[in-house]
């Protein structure tokens, strides 16, 4: 397993891969932190409209340094800009969009994802200060809820597991996982491998995955550009 660190995708590459599945005309929410990176790799010629739960639809990238307007921020409290056609709304309307299933895609980070679609991404347990933000809403908030994550933890433990051990964010909510090694769908309570890096064997991939990777048709090579 020691060579996983050498072959695995960077965060940028995982974000790039996730961006390829965002269709033209999609309404998208990107979780705070790593998922925000997906917007950088929006496919040319496709228009995605980004939603931020603090009340903006169709915001754009960060302004130039020094040009920040701190009333114009995203859910991660980073300064953003507006695209033509943007709209402001209050928090109840914003979460009506989320909870009402009006987003096409939500992309979130994960501590653990289980083969039954359960997600744990908000709490590592009892110590410290708990904080949940909008994560528990977002997992019920989109027609498609995807996760982007390293395939294993910093200590090498699997993040794709049979059952989550950490406090849940949502039950049975994730349908696709983009990892540093593979693209895995969740269907009927099991992981189905769709793509993997050519450099890793199925056996080695299974060895760093905490639940069975099922096959359902051919497994494509996970191919991403240098970034």
């Amino acid at each position: 397993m020691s060579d996983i660190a050498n072959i695995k995708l960077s965060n940028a590459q995982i974000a790039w891969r996730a961006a390829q599945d965002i269709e033209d005309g999609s309404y998208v929410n990107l979780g705070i932190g790593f998922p925000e990176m997906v917007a950088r790799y929006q496919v040319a010629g496709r228009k995605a409209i980004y939603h931020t739960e603090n009340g903006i639809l169709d915001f754009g990238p960060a302004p130039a340094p020094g040009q920040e307007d701190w009333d114009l921020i995203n859910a991660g409290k980073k300064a953003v800009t507006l695209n033509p056609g943007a709209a402001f709304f209050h928090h109840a309307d914003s979460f009506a969009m989320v909870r009402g299933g009006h987003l096409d895609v939500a992309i979130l980070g994960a501590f653990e994802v289980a083969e039954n679609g359960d997600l744990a991404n908000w709490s590592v347990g009892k110590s410290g200060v708990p904080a949940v933000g909008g994560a528990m809403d977002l997992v019920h908030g989109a027609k498609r809820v995807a996760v982007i994550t390293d395939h294993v933890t910093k200590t090498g433990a699997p993040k794709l597991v049979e059952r989550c051990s950490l406090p849940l964010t949502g039950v049975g909510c994730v349908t696709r996982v983009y990892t540093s090694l593979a693209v895995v769908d969740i269907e009927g309570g099991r992981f189905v491998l769709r793509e993997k890096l050519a450099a890793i064997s199925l056996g080695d991939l299974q060895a760093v995955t905490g639940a069975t990777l099922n096959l359902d048709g051919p497994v494509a090579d996970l191919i991403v550009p240098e970034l």
Partner: protein
Amino acid sequence: MDKTIGDVAAAVADIPDGASVMIGGFGGSGAPIELIHALIDRGPRDLTVINNNAGNGRIGIAAMIDAGMVRKIICSFPKSKDPRAFTEAYLAGRIELELVPQGTLAERIRAGGAGIPAFYTPTSFGTELAAGKPTAEFDGRGYVQERWLKADYALVKAEIADRHGNLVYRKAGRNFGPLMCMAAATTIVQATRIVEPGAIDPEHVVTPGLFVDRVVAVPHARQEEDLNIEGAVYA
């Protein structure tokens, strides 16, 4: 991303028999008359119509009823200056009525759009309109549990739309429009004017475009009330 569609006929062309259709408007204010008449031209049957009222005169929803397209109406106030179409169909047993208090109707539609499957309201508690519904007591007061209301389609009238579907309304024509846009699987909007994205100030948008699927320009939209004053008939 361009949600505009060529004409009202194309905008409603896929509404099938048996569909549930929310129709904006309170009396004539906000009534999307041109979309309704396009739907009459298409002629699907067995529709469930959700509106505050149940038609007035011989146009709009009343004309849908006269055309035999409506199986059921969900509304708060099926009376109007000229309620013949609904009254005759109802008394003859040709149309089903679900009578809902106006605020409950609005809140049920909002709940449908907001992913809230049920809520409690004091409205109708202890009355016959609460019959058969679950009740609960909170802080010593009785409440009725009401369910969300969704629909397959919404027909809504706006004043200005941009190509992304952002909307502003005109005066009290707003009424149920923003709620119905949220609660329908497919939302079809007629707008007096269609503008480029960015032409509506982001602070002034009432319905963000994500709630809207199709936008059709009807620059000379008629007011239901004016048509009724003229004695118009759509058949």
